[in-house]
């Protein structure tokens, strides 16, 4: 048998404990950054796989977009992490703890449609929410003013237009100033001015440090508002990262010179080179990070090529998205 002598000296034990504790402190401050973490989340409705092995991590203060077509699993994901739906596999944590009513009270959420009692007016509906969260009734007037519903607060919910119902839902989610706001397609069915209003509201709330999780199928909205994004399709994650990175994936530099084959060879040697494609006498170059025309021009010139045409072309986000989804469909 191999006997290891574990008789550490008194001092070393203390040093080791101190180091472990310091390590934990450093680690904890990193962990505190994560607001929501999902590991391998899966759910099926009978034979339909709504979610397959989703891994996700959302940090404090991010405006996180869940982007995907209808039926991609956005609402299912939100339903699972809010405790409404049961996942068949995987697990998740809010604020590094398993789900509890304490965590839920720090989260304001709207899922799919606004859900209120039609026979009650706005104030009474919000009073019920306020009771559950232990929020002072004075906060109700504040959130109603925030969404411009103060003048209709005594009217019954069933008399509201759809836009007003959406706004009431947002007001309800914001009662008590939650740390996390979850909005599932908040601009659904709104007219353009309504959409702009909601967008400004989201940006305002985000500026105050609230973490926002936004599920949407509108690429435009996600691009304008979110800092991070995950793209879902048929329950699978296609892309995850910063919105800026996703946007940079949509940029292409068009180059042209007298000698295309030579251009190709030189371009391949460019440090940030990812891929290229030649069509006619235009070479389309994809680079890492944002496209820097000046840097490329410099590089080519110093290698003996004079460009006759440099142009940064932005593929539309929609095309990029369709490409992502189409590519996924080809494989599967």
């Amino acid at each position: 048998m191999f006997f290891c002598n574990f008789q550490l000296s008194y001092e070393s034990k203390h040093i080791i404990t101190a180091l472990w504790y310091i390590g934990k402190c450093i680690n904890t401050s990193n962990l505190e950054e994560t607001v929501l973490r999902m590991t391998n989340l899966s759910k099926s409705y009978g034979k339909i796989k709504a979610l397959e092995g989703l891994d996700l991590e959302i940090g404090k203060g991010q405006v996180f977009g869940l982007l995907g077509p209808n039926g991609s699993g956005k609402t299912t994901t939100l339903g699972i992490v809010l405790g409404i739906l049961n996942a068949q596999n995987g697990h998740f944590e809010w604020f590094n703890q398993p789900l509890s009513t304490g965590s839920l009270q720090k989260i304001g959420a709207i899922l799919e449609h606004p859900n209120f009692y039609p026979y009650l007016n706005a104030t009474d509906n919000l009073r019920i929410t306020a009771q559950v969260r232990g929020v002072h009734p004075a906060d109700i007037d504040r959130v109603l003013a925030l969404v411009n519903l103060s003048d209709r607060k005594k009217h019954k919910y069933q008399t509201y237009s759809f836009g007003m119902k959406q706004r009431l839902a947002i007001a309800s989610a914001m009662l008590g100033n939650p740390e996390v706001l979850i909005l599932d397609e908040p601009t659904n069915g709104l007219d353009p001015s309504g959409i702009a209003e909601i967008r400004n509201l989201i940006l305002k709330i985000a500026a105050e440090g609230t973490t926002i999780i936004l599920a949407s199928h509108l690429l435009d909205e996600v691009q304008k508002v979110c800092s991070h994004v995950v793209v879902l399709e048929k329950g699978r994650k296609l892309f995850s990262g910063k919105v800026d990175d996703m946007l940079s994936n949509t940029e292409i530099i068009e180059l042209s010179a007298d000698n295309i084959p030579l251009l190709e060879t030189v371009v391949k040697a460019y440090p940030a080179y990812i891929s290229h494609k030649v069509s006619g006498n235009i070479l389309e170059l994809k680079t890492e990070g944002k496209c820097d025309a000046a840097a490329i021009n410099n590089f080519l010139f110093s290698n003996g090529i004079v460009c006759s045409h440099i142009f940064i072309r932005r593929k539309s986000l929609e095309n990029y998205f369709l490409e992502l989804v189409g590519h996924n469909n080809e494989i599967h």
Partner: protein
Amino acid sequence: MKRLQSAINAELIKIINYRTFWVLTGLYILTLIVVLFGIQAFLNNVTVNINNKSPLPVPSITVYAFPMVWQNLAYVAGYLKVFPAFLIIILITNEFSFSTLKQQLITGTSRAIYLSAKIILIACFSIAIALTVGLCGLVAGLLQPTPDYSKIINPGLWFIGAHAFEIFSYLIFTAFIAIIFKRAGISVILLMLYTLVIEKILVFRLPESLGQKLPLESIGNLIPLPNSPLMKLFGVSFRNHTAWQDIASCLIYNLIFIALMYLILRKKDL
């Protein structure tokens, strides 16, 4: 405790501003009063008719005489317990059709607290109804030509308590059906089907010992058919107290239904 208090406040907000609630409750109380004060006249009519045709003199039945009034009224009121049941079905299925249960859970109620608040609401209804019946009994008894004041407070008063328990158990059973089916129409139909048809068939088919233990039978038997001079004529005598077996079996059913309701809320996707 504070969370339970908040949940109960939330339930109150939901019903106080609900016109349907007030209309149904008002109609029910009105029906209750009319029926309770009307049985005497009805029975008098019946006895007179029978007397005209029977060889033996049939004694008239005084419903509101003091010791017996509690049991008599509680027994009759027991037939009207479907009305509060409809109210409970509406209140609970509303939460599903408006998706407000889902919203309340997302907002941060726990399922246990939510269920507890509903149960406390049901308990309050039961007590209020029983007190109404008791009040009717008191008033009716005092309005008699010769009320026997010494017999006002007597063990018969337990029947009012039994009535509260009867309504409570029946409403818990109704709530259970409402939570399973989630839609008002189906719940009402199923409740009526079970009450009027299915359990009667089961009681008929099963052996006596088992049949008496079925939920609605136990609930109904909490208040047995009151003895009356008519019965004495035929030599039939019913119990004049509530049997402890029925109380125990109702308690067990209540616990089972409450546990099942909690499990359903826990496990089902909403």
